[in-house]
């Protein structure tokens, strides 16, 4: 079926996604600025408790801070800094947030890519087998059920006990979603009239699966990749904490414990951008695959 959205050109689709990400960053930035402003300890300086300073100096410092720009000016300054790559100052790490994000993001992205990649490969292969040979469906189904029912942190502990890296915990956390979505898509494709007709004509089941079912479901399965990123990135929080992996999500946890709002709001924004970019990439790939498949 050719809907209106499918007729959108690649570039319109791309710019549509860019606009959505930019809008989210802007709205999230304003929300984050508000949180930084209302956070406990905001507007309080170390000078207030410095016993070496006289009462007059402390009062002077408080007066100076009270005369600082109002809320709208604060928002403008915050967004201006963000546009220039200045994400603020971390109070707990005593360094720029940009520096922390830059140092830790690559590790998280690498873990995400490996974990989600493994989960997608295993999930799609298991779904293929489950739809092709119904008798084999119980095993991946049971594994998916078990993985769905265990917190990601416990999966990470289990990997540590086995001496495996945290990437595997992420793969096990994302696997059930990749498997269940792919299996549902392939099962729907396998029930299509032309697939049933191919079976009726005596074409070998393996060939029907590869040439018809997989081909029909492929564009939507590509979209599952975006979902896997959306599920996998937040799952990295407990995994990085448990595995003591110095990634971006462990930083968020440390910031939550020390109530470092500039880090928390900016990591949340970065996470939102990663998730939306993952969704956008899989959406564009899925539309392209649909066009190729006709």
């Amino acid at each position: 079926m050719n809907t209106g959205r499918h007729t959108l050109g690649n570039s319109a689709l791309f710019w549509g996604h860019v606009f959505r990400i930019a809008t989210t960053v802007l709205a999230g930035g304003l929300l984050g600025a508000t949180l930084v402003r209302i956070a406990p300890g905001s507007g309080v300086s170390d000078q207030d408790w410095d016993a070496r300073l006289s009462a007059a100096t402390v009062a002077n410092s408080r007066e100076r801070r009270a005369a600082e720009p109002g809320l709208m000016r604060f928002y403008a300054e915050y967004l201006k800094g963000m546009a220039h790559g200045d994400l603020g100052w971390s109070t707990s790490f005593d360094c720029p947030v940009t520096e922390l994000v830059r140092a830790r993001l690559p590790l998280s992205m690498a873990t995400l890519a490996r974990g989600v990649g493994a989960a997608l490969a295993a999930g799609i292969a298991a779904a293929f087998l489950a739809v092709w040979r119904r008798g084999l469906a119980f095993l991946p189904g049971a594994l998916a059920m078990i993985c769905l029912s265990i917190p990601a942190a416990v999966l990470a502990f289990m990997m540590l006990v086995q001496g495996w890296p945290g990437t595997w915990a992420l793969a096990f956390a994302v696997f059930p979603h990749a498997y269940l979505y792919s299996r549902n898509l392939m099962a729907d494709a396998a029930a299509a009239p032309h697939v049933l007709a191919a079976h009726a004509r005596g074409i070998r089941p393996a060939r029907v699966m590869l040439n018809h079912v997989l081909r029909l479901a492929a564009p939507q399965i590509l979209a599952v990749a975006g979902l896997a990123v959306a599920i996998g990135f937040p799952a990295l929080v407990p995994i990085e904490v448990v595995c003591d992996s110095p990634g971006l999500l462990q930083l968020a946890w440390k910031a939550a414990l020390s109530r470092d709002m500039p880090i928390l709001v900016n990591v949340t924004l970065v996470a939102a951008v990663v998730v939306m970019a993952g969704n956008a990439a899989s959406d564009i790939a899925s539309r392209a695959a649909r066009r190729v498949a006709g």
Partner: protein
Amino acid sequence: MTALRMVAASTLALIVAASIGAGAVCRRGYADQDREHPNEPPSREHPLGTDELGRDRFSRLVYGGRVSLLIAPAAAAISTALAAAIGAATAALGRRWHRTVSAAMDLFLAMPTILILLTARALLPLNTSPWLSIVITCGLLGCLGWAQSARVFRERAASLLASDFMLQARASGSNTFRTFVAHIVPNLRPAITAQFWIATPLFVLAEANLSLLGLGVSEPAPSWGNMLRELENYASVPERPWVLAPALALLIVVCCLHLLLPARSGTGSALRGGGAVCQPLH
């Protein structure tokens, strides 16, 4: 009801009953410390051994079930009620509201829930009494998990508002309030029930993750999540497998909840085939 669902329902009922009647099931209180016997292996006195403070692990598991199984349904009820109210109101209040609330929903959905939870938790006092920490965890999970369900309710309410019987109700002079109470809410009830059951296992896991990270239920109140912090000493887990008891309890409860979900609405009706998957809160 299939045999598997019967087993799931019975197991869940047994666990809930044991948690509610924890006082009768356990010989010791969850906070009672036996400093003479810390880190004891299982014995007749302590069926799951003791933790490093000498507290009976079995008692903590049973009482912890009470906390975990109280927080998740309560949070699911809050989030489902919020989602139903916001979704239905958005559908009814016209295009401008529809756009504004949809934008808020998109913003909420774009940001990983666990990071919003961490941010919101960091804004609240960290050093709280155990029972206040339970209320905070429950409130946070309930108030921040509405966006995904609200979309479902918005679409459902919009299709109800456009239906013929609603047209007839309006033509008969039914005002907005009466329309909602008499027509929209009763027709949304099946969706509300389904969303509640879908959300409950997600909140059980979210509470466990949050407590394990030290941002959920605080000591000495037990929850399955904060009991799992014993796994930090993971090297000794092969010699002390009983410390995995809370993980096993979580596995059983969440599996039972998944098995009890309606066939086409399940988060993971994996064994039956079919069922959409709901995004976890991790």
